[in-house]
């Protein structure tokens, strides 16, 4: 049985070109970029080049890129950093109910510390209403943090409109673009984004590295203290090898993005088509229109199924997918994203599966997935 990996929103394998670049870098460059001798300067040069690549990929300035240990650290730096540095201006923060935990938990912590946080609701399609954003604005609002693409449903928030609204009011706008960066072309100037989070291991790069884009004018409070790396925004010897791999992953992405997106769309279409063909009962959580949805993540509800049993059976049949929610000690917590979309009592919270596609998945695999789902659904249904 050939395993089919459809959990690319959790993490992606390393791209072969990234592997090659990292292997060469391992042999050629190990110096500490802060050292002033030859080995240090060689590492510094590579680091500078990577920073240029990152900046160009989102149309930001070279100085605006802060390398971190990944998406979680970048989100934390953005949210705590912006809140603490601007608390003299106000203590109100706007976010949504469907953010990743690396955004929600910092917001909850800030609430404990006396900040006031508005968690915007979403509609049944998982979208924030721009009018709700507007209504939430207050005189003391200092930060709005709204994710670009939701990691469980693939729904895209109206980032451009939110950006325009925040910039015109002088409110800092952060977006967690971890799931968006591999799919959408992002222009931080055009979209009026002040802070933006990107992670390497979701775009075929290595784990343990990411970056935070910080527009030059934005003040952040320092979080990690020590050396002067990353212009003191992020102390600690730079993870040069991973950054080298991340750089290659971004370069390859830029060459392949359009092609990959077309491929993801055809995978989505094929999976949906195959499920329909087999008359399998399912609902889409969200809306698959390309204006509001990325092509590589779909979240489907299978009425009558129990997510834990369903996932176990899918895994046994060689299909690696997820329920889209963080797993804690083996138990699956109902998704906070689906709860925000459908309410606490919706059966969708207990019967939904996230499929997230990668560049190496094939349409044939989608048919096999539909076939294996059909077998499982029939088997489980007959037991009830």
């Amino acid at each position, binding site marked *: 049985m050939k395993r089919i990996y459809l959990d690319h929103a959790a993490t992606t394998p390393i791209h072969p070109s990234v592997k090659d670049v990292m292997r060469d870098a391992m042999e050629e460059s190990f110096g500490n970029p802060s050292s002033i001798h030859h080995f240090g300067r060689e590492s510094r040069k590579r680091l500078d080049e990577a920073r240029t690549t990152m900046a160009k990929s989102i149309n930001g300035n070279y100085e605006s890129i802060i390398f971190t240990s990944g998406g979680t*650290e970048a989100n934390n730096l953005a949210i705590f950093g912006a809140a603490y540095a601007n608390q003299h201006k106000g203590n109100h923060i706007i976010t949504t109910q469907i953010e990743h935990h690396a955004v929600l938990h910092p917001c909850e912590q800030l609430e404990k510390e006396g900040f006031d946080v508005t968690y915007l609701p979403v509609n049944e399609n998982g979208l924030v209403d721009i009018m709700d954003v507007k209504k939430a604005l207050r005189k003391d609002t200092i930060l709005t943090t709204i994710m670009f693409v939701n990691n469980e449903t693939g729904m895209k928030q109206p980032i451009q409109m939110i950006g325009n609204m925040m910039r015109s009011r002088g409110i800092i706008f952060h977006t967690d673009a971890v799931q968006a960066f591999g799919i959408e072309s992002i222009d931080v100037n055009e979209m009026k984004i002040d802070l933006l989070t990107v992670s390497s291991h979701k775009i075929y790069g290595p*784990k343990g590295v990411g970056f935070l884009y910080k527009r030059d004018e934005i003040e952040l409070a320092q979080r990690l*203290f*020590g050396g002067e790396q990353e212009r003191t925004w992020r102390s600690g010897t730079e993870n040069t090898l991973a950054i080298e791999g991340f750089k290659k992953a971004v370069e390859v992405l830029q060459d392949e993005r359009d092609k990959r997106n077309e491929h993801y769309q055809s995978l989505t279409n094929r999976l949906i088509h195959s499920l329909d063909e087999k008359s399998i009962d399912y609902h889409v959580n969200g809306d698959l229109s390309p204006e509001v949805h990325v092509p590589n993540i779909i979240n489907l509800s299978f009425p009558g199924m129990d997510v834990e049993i369903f996932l176990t059976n899918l895994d046994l049949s060689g299909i690696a997918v997820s329920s889209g929610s963080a797993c804690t000690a083996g138990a699956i917590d109902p998704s906070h994203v689906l709860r925000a979309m459908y309410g606490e009592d919706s059966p969708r919270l207990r019967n939904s599966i996230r499929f997230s596609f990668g560049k190496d998945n094939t349409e044939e695999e989608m048919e096999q997935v539909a076939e294996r789902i059909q077998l499982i659904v029939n088997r489980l249904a007959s037991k009830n």
Partner: protein
Amino acid sequence: MIYLDNSATTKPSPEVLKTFQSVSLNYFANPSSIHTMGGDVEKLFKKARKQIAELLNVSDQEVIFTSGGTESNNLAIKGIAHAHKNRGNHIITTQIEHPSVLQVCEQLENEGFEVTYLPVNQQGIISVDDLMKAHKEETILVTMMHINNEIGSIQPIEEVANYLSQFPKVTFHTDHVQGFGKIPLKYNADGLDLVTISGHKIHGLKGTGCLIKKRHINLEPLFQGGSQEISIRPGTENVAGIVSLAKAIRLAQEKQKNYSHVMLLRQRLFDELKNHKQITINSPQNGAAHIFNISIPGFKPEVLIHALGEKDIYVSTTSACSSKQNEPSHVVLACSNELNANSSLRVSMHIEQNEEDIDVFIKELNKIIKQYDNVMG
């Protein structure tokens, strides 16, 4: 090439690189995913944690993986200060800590904590009496580095741990980044609560490290997010980095037996340079063997570094983390004087450093000093 800047960073060992590569490619899934592929990665990841715990003689739950030494130091110090601020607001450290300790302490001072910076003697060593005198009712944390990164002085960590073990209210953290693999500590000692270890100083990879945190110690996380690392350190685990760290730790412990060889090299440096009229040795005779610090007053260290670089010999000024500042070394200043602090040069060896490397360094250094003397004289 003669690389004598191993306290800034070391060359990763081929075995570590091989491990990193193989795990990156073959075990790429997210260990938090509940499917079999995630489960396989989680198993491997747990095995690495268990291996490290066994090597350090601590329990599995006491190993917290981080992105490196700076993060471990920040997590330990800020984590304890913020978690226990209701118990007291006094912290004790030393004047010669790494910037990732000193700057955190300064930040905590800005937040209202009181910090005592213990002085050191000419050998760069604190006095335990001074520590006892500084210790008071409000003290919640003592953070003291094991081996100093600039001059190699060794603090009496086990003695301090022993003293502090009588005071359960005081947490004891040590920055062990330069000591690991050279001068081991008794990691399970009573009173030693938090220990920082970095991968890239022991021929592991940058971006890897851990914090040993004893079970009874509670600290506030630096980041909030998923429930990885018992929520103390959320974020998708850098599994390949972590497994490679286990390898680096094992190799470093195996190679520790070569330390006596490094002591011989260090003795040679002492013997050859101690009578040189222009050279002052800043490292104490009884310091760690792999770090050797000298001052050549009248010579800008940058000039010497570049002149040695021309000969394919690589040394550094102070620590890499502060070498951009062009400030005098705060460490040399604490145990010597400004003249020496402005002109200090660090030679740092790895555990398998070649004898010949040291001979060539001594020869070339003498030559360069003579050359410049002639030019300037």
